């Protein structure tokens, strides 16, 4: 499958012309804090997880995002869902 994945990534998803993903992704407060920690300290140790050996190709999600049009994205704040408290010291 490696060759197929390479082809898909090399031609920037042209094989999926017409791709459409629409919906809502609800994100918990805890996840937002994890994401923030990850953003501020990208060297965070990976959490060991018991999964079958992953032989799939890893790819640069940022690069892939450049291949698509992100037309409408907005963030809704809901009670207990998204509160960002930040403290920066030096």
């Amino acid at each position, binding site marked *: *499958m490696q*060759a*197929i994945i390479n*082809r*898909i990534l090399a031609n920037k998803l042209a*094989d*999926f*012309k*017409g*791709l*459409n*993903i*629409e*919906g*809502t*992704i*609800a*994100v*918990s407060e*805890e*996840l937002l804090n*994890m*994401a923030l920690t*990850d953003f501020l300290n990208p060297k*965070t*140790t*990976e*959490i060991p*997880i018991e*999964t*079958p050996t*992953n032989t*799939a190709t890893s790819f640069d*999600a940022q690069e892939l995002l450049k291949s698509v049009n992100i037309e409408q994205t907005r963030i809704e704040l809901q009670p207990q869902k998204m509160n960002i408290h930040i403290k920066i010291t030096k």
Partner: protein
Amino acid sequence: MKALLQQLQQRNFQDLKGSALTIKLPIALDLLNEVIRVVIKDVDVLQVVKITDINNGQVTIDVRTSIFTFKERIITGRIIREIDVVKPAIQIEITDGLGFAGRKLVGMALPDGMELENKVLRISLRHFLFDTPQSQALLQFLKVGELETRAHDFLLRLYLEH
């Protein structure tokens, strides 16, 4: 980012509860035939399996094997629009070109992830499309799946809800 994905998976995506996504994924015929070619390359008996035509829910498949009594067949089938969400799979009902004995022969030669039972060929999405641990975990949230044929591609519609 990888650590976050692992954490999400470890917590069975509880952090994303309340999410709903509709995915429309066009799959070009050329790409699908390339995938089939790769999948069957280790199956000695199957020399060629190629989808040559798709039209109005019907598919035509050119099959060539090394079996003396089954050198070449043109098989036609009907796409079953609804995707089984319990065992996510694309299903094609064979309508012509493959009798009882032929189905038995082809059934035995099929690679992992594909099975032919009675007249229905099942192609596992878990095996061929969602083959990473993360995407397999997401499949548990699949509520509705459909597949339709268009002029030059298949359109896979998936609705996921958590």
